[in-house]
């Protein structure tokens, strides 16, 4: 058993030890030990060349990561949170995602970017965004959302191996979470969703920080005789259509839980996929449980009301299953 944070740390440490092309770059990754303590001790072990504290210039250090990847290195760029990554969106969208295409296949960007995401700690409106859907929208990059300790470890390794730019979103509420970690066995493909809990009455589809709320909701629902299936998306781009559709084909009802705002969210995308590919399996309208369409409030009771919680998931599931 270890923590999510430790799992990420172990993975990066393994890479730094085994592949000289790998280096870590970002704000406060060195002296500070990482804003979320992921890289504690790295500067001492690997030195300043490979653990690079950057100035506060998201656009340029993400872009430099792109350039370094093109140039043959395997950088891990840590953007402190998705909130600050907005400054680097031009480099991501106009360089990282396009380089292979614009050059006709001559150049590739084997870059790994990690960032913390999500809200729930009262760090207020500018620091609580969930913008995974903005990234998942872009062809040319890949997006992962580890929701378990095991995935936190495995996805870093998969991200470095991938020849395309990979963006890993680590929900900031998960860093202290404990869970089992197996570093010996071959990990499953990160690009597939996983059924974390089997059920028959309704599919609860979630990712990242919302997975555990979905599992909590499933516990609640079981007390009332509703057996919910819980699907962890794991990969946000590409989305695993097959697993999602198979689950809903079994249960005939879907509740999608997404901490982003509902409009234009990944929940919307999944609803569209289900409407297209599982239309004749649906016994009820698709439910989406998302953050309310408000900037994330600071006060605790308001923040809790805005972000999806177990009770809203349970209510949605019940509506979906119906009164009968």
């Amino acid at each position, binding site marked *: 058993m270890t923590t999510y944070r430790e799992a990420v740390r172990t993975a990066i440490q393994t890479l730094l030890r085994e592949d000289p092309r790998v280096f870590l770059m970002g704000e406060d990754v060195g002296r500070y030990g990482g804003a979320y303590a992921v890289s504690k001790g790295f500067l001492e072990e690997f030195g300043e060349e490979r653990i690079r504290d950057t*100035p506060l*210039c998201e656009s340029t250090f993400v872009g430099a990561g792109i350039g370094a990847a093109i140039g043959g290195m395997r950088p891990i760029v840590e953007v402190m949170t998705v909130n600050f990554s907005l400054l680097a969106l*031009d480099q991501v969208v106009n360089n990282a995602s396009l380089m292979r295409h614009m*050059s006709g296949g001559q150049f590739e960007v084997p870059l790994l970017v990690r960032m913390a995401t999500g809200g729930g700690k009262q760090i207020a409106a500018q620091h609580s965004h969930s913008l995974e859907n903005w990234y998942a929208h872009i062809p040319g990059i890949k997006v992962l959302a580890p929701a378990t300790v095991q995935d936190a470890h495995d996805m870093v390794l998969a991200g470095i191996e991938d020849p395309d730019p990979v963006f890993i979103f680590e929900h900031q509420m998960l860093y202290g979470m404990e869970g089992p970690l197996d570093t010996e066995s071959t990990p499953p493909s990160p690009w597939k969703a996983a059924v974390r809990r089997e059920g028959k009455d309704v599919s609860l589809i979630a990712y990242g920080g919302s997975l555990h709320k979905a599992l909590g909701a499933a516990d609640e629902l079981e007390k009332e005789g509703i057996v919910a299936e819980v699907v962890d998306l794991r990969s946000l781009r590409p989305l695993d259509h097959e697993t999602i559709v198979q689950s809903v084909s079994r249960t005939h009802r879907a509740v999608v839980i997404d901490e982003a705002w509902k409009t234009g969210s990944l929940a919307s995308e999944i609803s569209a996929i289900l409407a297209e590919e599982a239309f004749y399996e649906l016994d009820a309208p698709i439910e989406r449980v998302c953050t309310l369409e408000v900037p994330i409030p600071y006060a605790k009771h308001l923040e809790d009301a805005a972000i999806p919680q177990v009770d809203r998931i349970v209510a949605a599931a019940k509506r979906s299953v119906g009164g009968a």
Partner: protein
Amino acid sequence: MTLDISRDHALELLRDMIRIRRLEEKSAELYSKQKIRGFLHLYIGEEAVGVGAMRALRMDDNIVATYREHGHALIRGVSAGEIMAEMYGKANGCSGGRGGSMHLFCAERRFYGGHAIVGGGFPIAAGLALADKMKGEARVTACFFGDGATDEGEFHETLNLTALWKLPVLFLCENNQYAMGTAFERHVSDRDIANNPPAYGIPSDSVNGMDVVAVERAVHNAAETVRETGAPRFLELRTYRFRAHSMYDAELYRDKEEVEEHKKEDPIATFQARAMSEGLITQDDVDAIEADAAQEIADAVEFAEQGEWEPIEDIARHTYARNLP
């Protein structure tokens, strides 16, 4: 002051500038005939910068350029045919027809594009230099950009980062006095662009960009310094574009007289005159160069015309390394 170069050298410089000029003129013609579509940014008037700089850099150095990069690519060694075919959008273009005029790429020549976001190339250049430094390669990453790019945040961030981490980037500012339609004095607070980099600890110089020999010398010296010290340097090349920003530009922002005035400094005409007056080249040489250039361009157009269109079935290629399920 004499040119102080050999006849062969003079011929090469003139040949390269004329090649660029004729390529750009033909591109303009083909654009108005709709063979080339989208945006087209011509280098006419600025040839001395492209030629001088590209000749001064080594084939091993990295080049990051802007959307006004046909000349840079040509002198770097990307064939006129591949450039033309790329502008046509054909599969035999240097970017497979995927990029167009603004996105010429060539891995073989270490030509890293072809960037259309002003200022977008700075971080890439820093990253390429970072990789070379970490791998112990003694390479210069030359980053070309215009005066407009110095307004963008990335310029300042990159100056800071390259100075701080000591990255071998040669910043080459092609100051043609205009950021698209906004004159220099209306978009820059400090009229002397060369003042910026020293604020970050980066040595800076300025050179007359209409003088190809001066350009070549200055870039050579700056590049060698970067190569030796591993630290960044900045060079402003003062130049002027005789044509509009792009093909679809009525040039409301400047007077015809101003353009005509600057045309008197045409890098090709002035160099040719000097070289001829010093007895380095003759009119026959010029005629031969023009004839060769005409042939080269004609062959390039033919190459482009004959090129195939990439099949639509391949549209998803080059999005990812492997097609996703």
